[in-house]
């Protein structure tokens, strides 16, 4: 399969160039540890007043936090760098190169960049998640582990689709950077289960920016019980978002004029 090979070559090339900036590894390590520390402090503050938060116990919330860090790491490794590059390319006109290649342009622009040092979050998040699970009374079966992996994958694809649509906005407004900052601050809200939020915010986090599906649902499949119906719904929504974002991308391309020389 051509695109799998492309993916690997882009990954390889990114790793080569990332290794030239080893300092970034330590900067990232420090940043991730700091974020984790503040998150844990906030959580212990909450639980010094109450034993549960809108029906979520402390280990369950810890699991949500772990997933939040893992998914955040995946976003920062693959989705964010590629989308930033897309916006940059639209602004500077270098998208012309991607568009004149005999391969699917959407595939190319989606896998060009990898920030491998961001994978530190994947490790940290897994540690947090592992600890949370060990504190839970329920035992973990293969099925829920599989469901968890599927839920994370679906969540990642949904976020990718939404992010792509926001980035494609750059075809019209050029300065799409501001959009993405909104996304970032809303993602921070996903650190807590979306069910604790008031209705309007809960719906936004579920359907507009599918953080409920990307973070809360995977955590739920692990920490509580597998909800087949929700997972099925996630599959449907993922397919819908992928199709819509693809159509929007193609629509946007027709409006691409490219920065003139």
């Amino acid at each position, binding site marked *: 399969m051509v695109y799998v090979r492309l993916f690997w070559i882009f990954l390889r090339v990114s790793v*080569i160039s990332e290794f030239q900036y080893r300092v970034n590894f330590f900067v990232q390590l420090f940043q991730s540890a700091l974020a984790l520390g503040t998150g844990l402090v906030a959580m212990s503050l909450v639980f010094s007043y109450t034993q549960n938060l809108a029906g979520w116990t402390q280990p369950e919330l810890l699991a949500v936090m772990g997933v939040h860090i893992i998914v955040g790491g995946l976003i920062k490794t693959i989705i964010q760098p590629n989308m930033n590059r897309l916006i940059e390319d639209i602004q500077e006109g270098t998208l012309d190169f991607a568009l004149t290649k005999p*391969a699917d342009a959407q595939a190319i622009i989606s896998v060009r960049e990898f920030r491998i040092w961001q994978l530190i979050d994947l490790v940290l998040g897994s540690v947090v998640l592992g600890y949370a699970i060990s504190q839970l009374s329920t035992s973990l079966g293969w099925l829920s582990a599989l469901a968890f992996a599927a839920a994370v994958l679906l969540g990642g694809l949904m976020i990718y689709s939404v992010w792509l649509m926001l980035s494609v906005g750059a075809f019209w407004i050029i300065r799409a950077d501001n959009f993405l900052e909104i996304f970032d601050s809303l993602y921070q809200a996903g650190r807590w289960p979306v069910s604790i939020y008031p209705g309007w915010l809960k719906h936004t986090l579920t359907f507009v920016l599918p953080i409920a599906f990307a973070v809360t649902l995977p955590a739920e499949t692990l920490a509580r019980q597998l909800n087949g119906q929700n997972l099925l719904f996630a599959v449907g929504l993922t397919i819908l978002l992928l199709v819509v974002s693809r159509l929007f991308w193609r629509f946007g391309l027709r409006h*691409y004029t490219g920065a003139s020389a």
Partner: protein
Amino acid sequence: MSQTIKVDTLIKTFQVPEREAGLKAAVGSLFKRKYREVEAVKKISFGIDAGEIVGFLGPNGAGKTTTLKMLAGLLFPTSGQIDVLGYEPQRREKELLRQITIVMGQRNQLMWDIPALDSFELQRAIYQIPEGEFRRMRDELIDLLSMGDLVKKPVRNLSLGERMKAEFISALLHRPKVLFLDEPTIGLDVTAQRLIREFVAAYNQRYQASVMLTSHYMADVQALCKRVIVIHHGQLLYDGGLAGLVEKFAAYKTIGVTLNDPDLDLSEYGEIISNSKGQVNLRVPKNATAQITTRLLNEVAISDLTIEDPAIDSIIEQVFQQEAQVV
């Protein structure tokens, strides 16, 4: 010879948001935008043969880049037909994209932090070039541009000229039949410019590729293009041989004379462009050249006389200025 590019009454109009200067207008345009239609390309038609190098000339904003982008399938034409190697470029079919390439002097596609050699692998994967063919072509291009081991250095450590050469290798690995070169020598020193020129000529000869070249350097055009297409304000002004351009647009010729008496005044014969110690250059209307030459030879004591066409860049400049005044 078969035509690789055919363009028929091509039109491209852009919707440009219109607003006046100033804060009030800027705030107003947030809510209500007025649009103005700008015709960037107006009914252009031409054809290019296989193996032909054509210079595409025009001042900034003439519609050159817009036309090139439509030919490369990056922009949708408003109306008119484009045919490149039997395909409609705006459909962006893989079979066509595999046979064309685009090189832009002001923009790079090689990755900054890694050696060009690694970026070439990426091209191989995207174009699905068979391993053996890829190696042969890559080494041939490296050789043609005498890049040697430079391709193993990270691109950011290369000089501008070296980087451009690497860009060319990367853009030609799939052996394209049609090349769109947009200002490929911009900012390069004279040696690097010459090298790129020779390289383009060699590639064109070897693979019978069609080349469309835009450049502000007339030396590029003179060295490479037998034929030029001149556009201005989106309209086709001239399509033909480079020599014909001089013929058609040069309204003057330059007569150079060496006087026996350096103090003689020749201003009654024509406009004096330069005069140093009896070496006088006169600008005369083209159709009066013969007559003035005869008069000079009969009436003035001259030891030498030459007649020259003006330099091509000054003609081009003159053409653009004339048109700007008319429109």
